[in-house]
């Protein structure tokens, strides 16, 4: 920063500017956003706290390596448009990460200001710039097409990031989303009061403006298999999220009123159950709701319960508040909203009445013992300390395990013992041209880590396809399409031909919780008894178009595509 108008001492004298929030008593009764965003004068003041360190430790703390000193410097100079350009060059979804990133563990944890006082409010500044730019940003230029085509499976943070990066590089990108609205966890999981849906819609619109095609209601693993996508696209990025919710594993989980956090939040966020009966999907509200867990999802669920009208919304966590993995800001907001924290308790059983409605959660008190593998002190039950928290609804927010829907459609795809997709240092799976990232690789992680994976995968896919193009057609898609990439009909033709030849899109058995290691590569495809013709009368399967290659009657992922580069 040449001509620095402020001395370091002057900068250090400015206190961290607080984020304005809505009155807890008001906001606990609706789903409006809690944090209001820094007004411009406070943002500019906050930006003046940045010391513009020559070695910017904050950048190293960011999973997508946003050039933080540069964008903050431009905010300080009042060039918000310039700041937005810098920010967007590194981070496709700043309006989202500014709201949901755990900054206190990432960029802000690395900020030198934090050594003696409060770190720079990097997340708040990021959100300020993103929101400022939202109404003003020019439509991004649509780059010249490379001719390469990429399928992205899943439209959560990882998929959207990869799609944006690839479209900016001139690839024809099609995103497949299983639900009816794009956004993945940003839509079904994170509530409106923390991340307004409008912001997700805005980011999705920006991608479609870049030429990204988004197809909803496509369940890869069922509608199309991974093999079939590989047959028509040059590369595939799999970012389907973690998937199957874990339950508590205690008696009584079949009672009415027990939810996974995924179901509870999906009903409210995606299906708008807060608006029942004006929206058609109901949710059991309950006068007293207990949410089990200590992460962001648990916080989202318990604060949702409060907003649905619960007299008492209780968070039950087996460690103490200091070990909670949730964002510090959300814990504070929950506190303000009157959430009751039951710390150091672990569920033992769900109690129900004669009609099998939930009536309480039996818990046992815990104490902290020796540190475990995560470095946190391990909670240990205190004998004889069982007690019951009376409640009508129990929500399990204790994590997820890998969803086998996609992986089971491609037995040759290598998995980890937990059923996650195994990738190499480039984010590529054992199948050439198939990359993966986000929770399906990491287990339950964060929005920003999924975005980091998407960003890296896009660069690796670009390198992979550029290399392939340089070496000729071997590594590229065998089908030729318009510059817009494969159209839905192209895939239907391929799929119809493929399944006619090998009608058994067979499943491997679902990975049971706690089952032995699954070695995907060695697991043979199960031959299934299948009808020799379609079960409806008089209709043959649709034949592929003449211009398409003959379907491959393979028994697994097509080995002929696994060409070394």
């Amino acid at each position: 920063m040449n001509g620095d108008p402020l001395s370091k001492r002057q900068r250090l004298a400015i206190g961290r500017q607080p984020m304005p929030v809505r009155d807890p008593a008001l906001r606990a009764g609706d789903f409006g956003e809690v944090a209001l965003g820094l007004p411009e004068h406070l943002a500019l003041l906050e930006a003046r706290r940045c010391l513009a360190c020559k070695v910017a430790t904050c950048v190293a703390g960011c999973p997508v390596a946003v050039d933080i000193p540069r964008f903050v410097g431009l905010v300080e100079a009042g060039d918000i448009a310039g700041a937005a350009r810098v920010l967007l060059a590194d981070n496709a979804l700043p309006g989202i990460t500014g709201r949901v990133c755990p900054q206190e563990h990432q960029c802000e944890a690395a900020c030198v200001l934090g050594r003696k006082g409060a770190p720079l409010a990097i997340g708040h500044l990021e959100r300020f710039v993103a929101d400022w730019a939202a109404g003003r940003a020019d439509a991004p230029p649509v780059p010249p097409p490379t001719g390469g085509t990429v399928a992205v499976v899943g439209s959560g943070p990882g998929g959207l990031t990869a799609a944006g990066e690839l479209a900016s590089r001139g690839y024809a990108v099609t995103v497949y989303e299983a639900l009816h609205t794009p956004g993945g966890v940003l839509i079904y999981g994170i509530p409106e009061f923390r991340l307004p849906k409008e912001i997700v819609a805005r980011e999705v619109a920006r991608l479609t403006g870049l030429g990204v095609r988004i197809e909803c209601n496509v369940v890869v693993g069922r509608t199309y298999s991974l093999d079939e996508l590989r047959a028509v696209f040059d590369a595939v990025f799999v970012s389907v999220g973690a998937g199957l919710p874990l339950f508590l594993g205690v008696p009584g989980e079949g009672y009415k009123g027990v939810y996974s956090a995924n179901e509870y939040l999906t009903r409210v966020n995606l299906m708008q159950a807060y608006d029942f009966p004006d929206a058609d999907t109901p949710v059991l509200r309950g006068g007293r709701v207990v949410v089990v867990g200590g992460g962001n999802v648990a916080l989202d669920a318990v604060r949702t319960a409060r907003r649905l009208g619960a007299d008492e919304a209780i968070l039950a966590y087996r460690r103490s508040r200091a070990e909670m993995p949730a964002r510090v800001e959300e814990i504070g907001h929950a506190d303000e909203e009157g959430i009751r924290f039951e710390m150091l308790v672990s569920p033992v059983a769900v109690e129900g009445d004669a009609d099998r409605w939930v009536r309480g959660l039996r818990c046992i008190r815990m104490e902290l013992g020796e540190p475990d593998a995560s470095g946190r002190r391990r909670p240990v039950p205190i004998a004889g300390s069982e007690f019951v928290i009376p409640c009508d609804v129990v929500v399990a927010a204790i994590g997820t395990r890998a969803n086998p829907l996609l992986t089971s459609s491609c037995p040759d795809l290598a998995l980890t013992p937990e059923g996650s997709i195994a990738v190499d240092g480039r984010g590529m799976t054992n199948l050439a041209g198939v990359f993966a990232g986000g929770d399906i690789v990491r287990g339950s992680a964060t929005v920003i880590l999924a975005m980091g994976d998407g960003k890296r995968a896009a660069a690796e896919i670009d390198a992979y396809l550029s290399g392939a193009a340089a070496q000729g057609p071997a590594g590229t898609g065998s089908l030729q399409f318009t510059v817009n990439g494969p159209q839905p009909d192209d895939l239907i033709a391929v799929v119809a031909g493929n399944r006619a030849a090998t009608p058994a899109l067979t499943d491997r058995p679902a990975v049971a919780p706690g089952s032995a290691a699954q070695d995907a590569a060695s697991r043979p495809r199960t031959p299934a008894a299948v009808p020799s013709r379609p079960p409806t009368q008089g209709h043959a399967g649709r034949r592929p178009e003449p211009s398409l290659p003959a379907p491959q009657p393979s028994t697994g992922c097509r080995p002929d595509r696994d060409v070394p580069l």
Partner: protein
Amino acid sequence: METQTPVGHEVLGNVVLAPAVHRLEVRAPRIAAVRRAAQFVIVRRGPGAERIPLTVAAADAAGGTITLIVQAVGKSTAELTALAPGQMIHDVAGPLGRPTELVPGGDAVVVGGGIGAAVVLPIAAALHAGGTAVTSIVGARSQPWVILEEELAAFGRVVVCTDDGTRGRPGLVTAALADELAAGAAATVYAVGPVPMMRAVAELTRPLGVRTIVSLNPIMVDGTGMCGGCRVTVGGEMRFACVDGPEFDGHAVDFDELADRLTAYRADEALARSRLGGGDS
């Protein structure tokens, strides 16, 4: 409340099969191309509507259509059955669930109670196509509610039962099934219908050791394994009907829990139904 531009899947036909039971032909080429017996779709009529699972009763891959048989029991299903040809269903996702388990060897009896006949239809078709001799037992409370008798007849013998004896043999499907089992015809039984019927079938076949497959339809939201709302207990283990099912071993299913969980939203459903036709849909 409807969007201005029609988007989604066109309803090409809507035929009444029985009181409140409609057969919808819906345009869904990519699902028609790949769906197999026992698989289902999740349908969302439009903005604000529920996601509801419906078995794909039949499909025309060449024509790009699927057949859904819908019984109007609540607001969402009533609105679906009210769709006229040319109207749109906003979202149809699938096919979901595992294809039917076609047990090799021996003859099969498929038992469809009420709307369950729509679920056994594609199973009977697939069994027949695979060379298995199929007997279909179709049950209904009374003659007007007997559905798909003719369609099932294309795949083998059909026994119709009505509770009141107004069509076919009087009595429950289990009595007809007991006769079939006594005749020794069945190596495998596929049973789909109300929970008490499936439980009764399972109890009938259990002592005989006849393999019995049931297709479950618990409350479901996403249909992809993400929410766990459709969890059922099978053999003492938690399974998700959407990704592990919908078919399970009828001798291992906890039917009491299933029946109970199906009532979780009874009060909400009554409220929604009471507002149906109130002019704001």
